């Protein structure tokens, strides 16, 4: 049996829409709906989807930056969703986050030393001189210089700032890190440096990652298992090899064929997917993807397809249509 570090069941996150003088609730944005997810110790689980699919909201709900509307989270032997006060604070040491924008996620009025020291202060660990020594170690661990402690974030490039956020995230020796689009704001050559650093740290520190990205080629590079999301739900979940060699949900296929690839030559782009992502305030009936799907049948607009295993495998999909397995015919 696999060692599960985090198990989420029935996670929902709805945001109220308030209007008028009394701020009455007039509707809800259903950002995340009924997500069941388990993360294995030591793996990298990818969450991939387009903007508005709920991948970031799910990440933030799992770490309880957002309180889940419903559902339970088991994290490393504790009922994480039910914890409060000092118990919650203690457990939160083990679960950290790296954000997309290294310009917004670092306080511009704090020095790099103060930023990386902050987690130790908040949790009251180590004496002052020990903390300072540890901060220097951490900076070197992520490929910066110990002499950088007294500089401010604006003196660093985007890639270096992301290294600072990584140093802050690993400071308390966490078990799980949620990486929310950690390389999306960076140039290609810098992306590669940061991705390599994240891989090295995972090996050295025995970390588990939940890796959120919209970029399938980055996801393929770093993840062991991948969950594809669309409009707040997981539509397909499989191991990396299985997902890329045998995508079974029409949305996954559309996503894969939309990615521009090097070396295929200037080609006539095909009409891959028409329409846009619907609003999560008023999602379509049945399968949320059916208005854009080219394989849809009548039932798709009536039945909400559950996420079910395909045969006896660990590959699960939420689609009632059985697609041909021969990918070549589609791509």
């Amino acid at each position, binding site marked *: 049996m696999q060692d599960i570090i985090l198990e989420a069941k029935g996670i929902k996150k709805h945001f109220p829409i308030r209007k008028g003088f009394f701020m009455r609730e007039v509707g809800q944005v259903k950002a995340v709906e009924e997500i069941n997810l388990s993360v294995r110790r030591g793996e990298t689980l990818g969450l991939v989807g387009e903007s508005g699919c709920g991948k970031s909201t799910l990440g933030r709900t799992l770490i309880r930056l957002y309180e889940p509307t419903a559902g339970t989270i088991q994290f490393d032997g504790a009922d994480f969703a039910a914890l409060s006060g000092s118990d919650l604070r203690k457990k939160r040491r083990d679960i950290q986050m790296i954000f997309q924008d290294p310009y917004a996620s670092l306080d511009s009025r704090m020095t790099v030393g103060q930023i990386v020291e902050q987690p130790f202060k908040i949790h009251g660990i180590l004496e002052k001189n020990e903390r300072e020594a540890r901060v220097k170690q951490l900076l070197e661990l992520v490929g910066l210089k110990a002499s950088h402690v007294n500089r401010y974030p604006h003196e660093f490039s985007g890639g270096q700032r992301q290294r600072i956020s990584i140093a802050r995230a690993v400071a308390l020796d966490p078990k799980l890190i949620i990486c929310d689009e950690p390389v999306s704001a960076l140039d290609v050559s810098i992306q590669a440096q940061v991705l390599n650093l994240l891989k090295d740290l995972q090996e050295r520190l025995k970390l588990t990652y939940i890796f959120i990205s919209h970029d399938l080629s980055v996801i393929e590079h770093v993840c062991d298992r991948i969950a594809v999301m669309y409009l707040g739900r997981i539509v397909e979940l499989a191991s990396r090899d299985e997902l890329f060699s045998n995508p079974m949900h029409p949305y996954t296929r559309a996503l894969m064929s939309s990615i521009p690839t090097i070396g295929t030559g200037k080609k006539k782009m095909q009409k891959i997917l028409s329409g*846009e992502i619907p609003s999560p305030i008023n999602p379509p009936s049945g399968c949320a993807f059916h208005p854009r799907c080219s394989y849809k049948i009548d039932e798709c607009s009536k039945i909400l397809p559950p996420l079910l295993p395909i045969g006896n495998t660990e590959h699960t999909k939420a689609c009632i249509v059985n697609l041909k397995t021969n990918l070549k015919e589609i791509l």
Partner: protein
Amino acid sequence: MNPVVQVKDLETTFFLKSGPFRAVNKISYEINQGETLGIVGESGCGKSVTSFSLMRLIEKPGKVTGGEFTLNGKSILGLDERQMEDVRGGKMAMIFQEPMTALNPVLTIGYQMDEQIKKHLKLSPKDSRDRAIEMLQLVGIPSAAERYESYPHQLSGGMRQRAMIAMALSCNPEFLIADEPTTALDVTIQAQILELFQSIQEKMKMSVQFITHDLGVISEVSDRTLVMYGGQMCETGNTQDILNSPRHPYTAALIQSRPKMGQRVNRLKTIEGVVPAPHEFPKGCPFANRCGRVQPECWTTKPRLTTVTGYDKRAVACFNPL
């Protein structure tokens, strides 16, 4: 047949407090009718400044300090601002990366399109309205007549970019500059926009300069490619030649540092270091301090762009090419 666009030794300098900084340094290229030239490079390489220089949109402290740019034989850099207004938006048009900042938020889409159409095509208000709606239909905007009355914030990101494209194309430009037109969009929407772009270019036979940092997009839309680093040309040639057998170490490193679908590696190859600050570029080749094939002369002399034999119109600026 003469090329539609001819750029020769273009130089743009920013006069900063710390001294003059040449953001674009002796860039030369040509684009034929119906051809797409891709310009690729990382942030700060000068690819956007090149486009802004051609559109004459460089503001102080920047200035185009040298070179020539002719559009169908007509010199553009020598025009005064009044003459330039007749060209900009008419014979040459530009699509920007972020339509939300490029469009005026307090004017309707229709008003902004009319303004341009009236000026360049000299149509009556009614005809220009019809033209605008026709263009919105052409780029695949549903219920175009209603969208004509909409404000930019009422459209989704993909629709706004379509409206931008409609606006740029409304006066039948001969030369279109697209500056990262799909970078802010989701992949499935990006695929739709690229498809639209290609079908329209085929119909209208424009010359296109397509700027992006994404090698995948370059590979799918452009005929020829120009790779830039530190304001200079590294390499130019047919897109597939460049991507399949890069000669400049920077091009090769750029291709290798990108994870590719279906080709798994344990570690990505990286380019060491970061792009230097404006005044910290090496004196010789701008890439010298990050290059794995650096030679002593790279530090002191700027490599000239030299023709690569055995290819069609291919050149590389490197003392020690691959």
